[in-house]
């Protein structure tokens, strides 16, 4: 396997808080990689650094062998890194279909946007197909803001997928009161895309069961450090991981 996405020695402080301290993470092409850790361990900050929303103080991010450290979010997206947000972010006052269309222009120049119509027939049918895939095609004409929380999760997943990124970063896909059926639904979609289309995923989650069932490899974070990486079973038996989750992490540092 080849490395698709790599973050090396990432550090980032917010004021006096060292949110990330020398974090490293690799995502192999075609894998489903999990990123777990207790609340506040820096998972989302690391996501933000990788996708360009936060600039690192130190360290490098590379994607497909190219250094993308400090690039803007739209540049990183157009290279092929898509992401969802922990607190789902959709375009509330646009229709579900329009939400999908925003994402279908990965490498288009902005000037072209002035002269072309909002959508072509192919884009609409591709968008509807993707909505069908996640199971909300019937809602295509509704305002996205009227969707329920679970439906928004599915929409966000759908419009990240339609841009056909090479690696998809999912920030807590089942978080926030989504029912169990939907969690399984999302997990099965991820597995399907991974198997059939060879999509690479990086999934942040602290539901251990979800991650252990889904991922090929897991990286564990605690208090801004990357603790360890390995297969789910290796990680599960690692004493440091148990300590981190049960709150014993501090002693090691002394």
């Amino acid at each position, binding site marked *: 396997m080849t490395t698709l996405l790599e973050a090396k020695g990432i550090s980032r402080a917010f004021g006096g808080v060292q949110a990330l301290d020398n974090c490293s993470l690799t995502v192999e092409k075609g894998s489903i990689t999990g990123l777990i850790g207790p609340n506040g361990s820096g998972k989302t900050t690391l996501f933000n650094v990788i*996708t360009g*929303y936060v600039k690192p103080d130190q360290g490098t991010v590379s994607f497909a062998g190219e250094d993308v450290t400090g690039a*803007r*979010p*739209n540049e990183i*997206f*157009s290279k092929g890194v*898509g*992401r969802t*947000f922990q607190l789902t*972010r*959709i*375009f*509330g*006052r*646009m229709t579900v279909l*329009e939400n999908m*269309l*925003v*994402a279908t*222009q*990965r*490498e*288009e120049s*902005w000037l*072209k*946007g*002035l*002269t*072309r*119509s*909002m*959508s072509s027939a192919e884009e609409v049918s591709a968008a509807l197909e993707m909505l069908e895939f996640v*199971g*909300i095609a*019937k*809602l295509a004409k*509704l*305002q996205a803001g*009227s*969707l*329920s929380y*679970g*439906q928004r999760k*599915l929409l966000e997943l759908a*419009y*990240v997928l339609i*841009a056909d990124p090479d690696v998809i970063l999912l920030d807590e896909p089942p978080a926030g009161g989504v*029912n169990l*059926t*939907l969690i*399984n*639904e999302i997990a*099965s979609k991820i597995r399907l895309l991974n198997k059939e289309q060879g999509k690479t995923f990086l999934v942040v989650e602290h539901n251990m069961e979800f991650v252990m069932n889904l991922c090929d490899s897991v990286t564990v974070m605690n208090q801004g450090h990357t603790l360890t990486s390995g297969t789910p079973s290796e990680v599960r038996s690692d004493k440091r991981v148990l300590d981190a989750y049960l709150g014993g992490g501090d002693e090691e540092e002394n």
Partner: protein
Amino acid sequence: MLTKSRLVWVGLFALLALFPLVVTTPTWTSIIMFALLYMAITTSWNMFSGYSGYVALGAACFFGTGAYTVALLAKHWNVPASGDLFWLIPLGGILAMIVALPIGLIALRVRRHTFVVITIAIFFVFQLSAINASFTGGTAGLQLPFIPWSFQDFNLPFYYLAFAMVVVATLLSAWVRQTRFGLQLMAIRDDEDRALGLGVKVWAVKLSGFVMSAFVIGCAGGLYAIYQGQIYPQFVFNPLFDISVALMAFLGGFGTLAGPLLGAFVLETMQLWLTENYSSGSLYLIIFGALFLIVIIFMPQGVVVYVKDRVTKREDRERSLLAQNEVQIAGGSQ
């Protein structure tokens, strides 16, 4: 394709085009001419601010720039007092766009309330410059050549030029709305960071939208200058102008196509009519206040959206569809 709604649009525009042929009273052609001017301005303002959610309170910067451009060029190029003056109007629009570029570069770095405040601050820079600079004539303002047309027909060319501006602004706004560019503006309105993460070049989109919206407003300023025959800094750079434009758009329907047209037509006509008929110039302010309270309480998205929702019963339909689909997702894999 001639759909029902397009027929309504064409019909309403035809009514406006025929109006001065039927009602020839100069008082009324002047009132509706001003209403048309504001319709063009508000529609153009809405094309950026309404679609992108960046509420700019600096439309007067463009309006005043257009007015001063036409007045100064007429003076320095010795343009004769005739219809030739009208050729200067597009130059007013172009200069407004040139001025919009640095304003956008400064103001569009920040969002929401901060953006509003910065546009107001920039507006006062313009007003103070116009009052204090020497080439603008200071508080004495500038005189334009007075066109010696007959009193009865004087309004007509201005009326049809203002009408043409409304048509241009409306077509531009309608066109932007159905392009990918318009979709991106609306994505920026809803969640700018998310749009950025989906590859939208938000900086380029915002700046070009802002600059485009300045053109018609600058042209309107130029037309106003020729019509009045003289301009003063406190009237062409007027903070009330900024607020009126925003309120007209909000009243009719912020971010919609028809809303700014409706809001500007109703408010400007009403204001001028009241000022004409009741010498107390502040009566219209009281009526405006009451009107805005009613609209904001009962139809916060503006008249156009309110009526449309009532007609199509959209909310009910959405609720039932959502509920159906929710059951399907929950029951799907059990």
